């Protein structure tokens, strides 16, 4: 079916476009964006008065849990959650069982995703074999199999020389290295940010330095090797300062921030709510403020969710025993809307969409995040002012593990199109 998205505010950061217009989808592609209402009766018309029409959102940090952990999430449920959250392109992380460290597994997940979800799924492959931090993967073969980057995510390479060699090799094959920065010797045993709250709760802490030490190390190694480095989920004020410094030196460095680190602090752990347990942990108010400023200033390049679904029985455990991570796909847009509102709307609509679509696509060189005529019609229709209450029982994700249950968020996804097909509609 061909569509006419009539009279919406068309926002396309890739063309710096922000105007009220009509967007036509034909044959699965963006056919035209025009100020004159087309009169073609074959088009299915969707009135977008007061709504935004934007390129589909892009999340470069998602855990889909396949293979091996389908009790937490599947390609199908994770894909459906993405589409409901306005994401048309997502990148899945390799910390599965077994880890995505071979071309066969990378191919298998890509092929299965094409069959099992309309959402576009790209694979971030492991950086070392078995994510054990010792032996390099076959980056050449992984790239040929379709991996778009390499990362050991939550099992970051501890040995600096292994990391240096991995970066050297990835640079040669044009694969960005994506890193979760955590020095495990500093964070071992910790389950929340080390500070006043952890001291009161008697919980072992994860110090800010466990992140910043590795940010500095990885940035220095990227500088030396010329590798393209992307830092995941910044959580500390000093981390933002380090990124600012290394960018000023010309290091090929980008970074992301998660909505929860912009909205919450370690005080959310009071009462031992395991839905406030994630890695990196929620930090202090001054960290939260620095991340907000970093995002507004442009030191932070994009927003990613680190969508990490877990089964309810896993999050029922005691705080030290419960796994790290929260779901984020279905709340991300509304969280950023709430954050932007709290901050006094520092983000223009165009900048907001850029941070959640065009910028992450560009970081990992994905063909997404644009409304260029002729491009696949991955489009999202958003109501930026809609206020809604988070009810995890309505999530498409298998995960219910969100700290935002009962929160009023601002901004709701109305329709999601992938390749011109309407794959999600808030109406049902």
């Amino acid at each position, binding site marked *: 079916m061909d569509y006419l998205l009539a009279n919406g505010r068309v926002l396309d950061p890739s063309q710096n476009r922000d105007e009220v217009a009509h967007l036509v989808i034909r044959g699965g592609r963006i056919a035209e964006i025009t100020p004159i209402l087309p009169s073609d009766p074959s088009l299915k018309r969707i009135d977008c008065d007061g709504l935004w029409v934007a390129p589909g959102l892009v999340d470069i940090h998602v855990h889909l849990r396949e293979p091996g952990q389908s009790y937490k999430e599947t390609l199908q449920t994770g894909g459906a959650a993405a589409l409901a959250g306005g994401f048309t392109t997502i990148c899945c992380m390799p910390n599965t069982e077994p880890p995505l460290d071979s071309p066969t597994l990378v191919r298998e997940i890509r092929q299965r995703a094409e069959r099992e979800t309309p959402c576009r799924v790209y694979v971030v492959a492991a950086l070392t074999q078995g994510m054990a931090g010792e032996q390099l993967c076959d980056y050449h073969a992984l790239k040929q199999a379709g991996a778009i980057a390499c990362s050991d995510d939550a099992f970051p390479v501890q040995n600096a020389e292994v990391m240096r060699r991995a970066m050297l090799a990835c640079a040669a094959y044009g694969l960005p290295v994506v890193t979760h920065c955590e020095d495990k010797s500093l964070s071992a045993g910790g389950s929340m940010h080390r*500070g006043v709250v952890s001291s009161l709760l*008697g919980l072992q802490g994860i110090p800010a330095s466990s992140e910043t030490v590795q940010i500095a190390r990885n940035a220095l190694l990227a500088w030396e090797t010329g590798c393209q480095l992307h830092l995941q989920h910044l959580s500390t004020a000093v981390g933002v300062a380090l990124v600012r410094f290394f960018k000023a030196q010309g290091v090929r460095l980008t970074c992301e921030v998660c909505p929860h680190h912009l909205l919450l602090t370690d005080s959310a752990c009071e009462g031992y709510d395991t839905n406030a347990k994630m890695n990196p942990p929620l930090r202090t108010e001054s960290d939260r403020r620095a991340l907000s400023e970093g995002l507004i200033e442009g030191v932070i390049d994009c927003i990613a969710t680190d969508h990490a679904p877990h089964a309810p029985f896993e999050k029922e455990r005691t705080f030290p025993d419960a796994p790290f991570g929260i779901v984020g796909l279905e709340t991300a847009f509304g969280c950023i809307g709430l954050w932007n509102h709290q901050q006094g709307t520092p983000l223009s609509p165009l900048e907001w969409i850029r941070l959640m679509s065009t910028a992450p696509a560009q970081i990992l060189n994905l063909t997404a995040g644009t409304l260029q005529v002729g491009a696949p019609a991955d489009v999202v229709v958003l109501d930026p002012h809609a206020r809604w209450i988070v009810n995890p029982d309505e999530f498409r994700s298998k995960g219910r593990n969100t700290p935002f249950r009962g929160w009023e968020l601002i901004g709701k996804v109305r329709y999601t199109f992938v390749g011109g097909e309407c794959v999600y509609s808030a109406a049902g």
Partner: protein
Amino acid sequence: MPHLLSAHDLPLAPMLERIRQYREGTTPRQGRGTIALLFYEPSTRTRGAFEQACVMLGYHPLVLTPSISSIVKGESLADTVRTLCAQGVRAIVIRHPHAGAAHTASRFSTVPILNAGDGAHEHPTQALLDIYTLWSHRGYPNPHTRWLEGVKVAIVGDVKHSRVARSNAILLTQAGAEVWLCAPPTLLPDAPLPGVQQTHSIEQALQNAHVVMALRLQTERMESGFLPSLNAYRRDYQITEARLQVAHPDCVVMHPGPIQRGVEIEDAVADGSRSLILTQVQVGLTVRAVCLEYALEN
């Protein structure tokens, strides 16, 4: 549900008065039913006192430890609590190595949860016992006033990992005491706790102190690299008669037990005239009875 998870949950003054009544011969009203004592960690004092307290109040104590329950088969804390509730227990007393375990249990419980020690978080009934010991030692001043105003209490030892220190800091400051936490630098809390002083200097902590509480030092702290050696700890932090010369002349010494003689405290002090250690043990039963009664009555 009147869970007793933290020292903050204790109504201090009425509980002190109730403990005193029972200590002076008033017989508590008798209840009926079973109270589960869910002990994931070994315990002599606390478990024994709770068990006797159940009997004193007419309840049957159902003691569950990992080795004799389905915990060993991998049953989760949540499911164990759900099962006990379904079996109709009246309350659950829980001791667990993880901070926050009592909070976790309370989320799945339909009956009151009493925290008998959760990791490095809190041990509220121990703190109540300690402060009752001080209250009786000081001649039962009006508990509705800040009756520890002007009293300096030094808590010395592995404060970082101590649930006793955290609960005591809460109750002692409520009663107006000036609380000092003293430990080697690596065993102080990562961030200063609100309302209390923190120092690694034992001289500063003991200076003019009216009360000194010694904490047990776990030998695993040496193995895990927090301390250079037991001797170094002894030399710098052991509570000795010589060290107590700078304290207030009437200074009393306490210890939650179990004591490691010759490590955190020297024999002469533990067994000397300043020591309230045996009094602490003596009031343990009554304190637990009053806590159970409070949770079950409200």
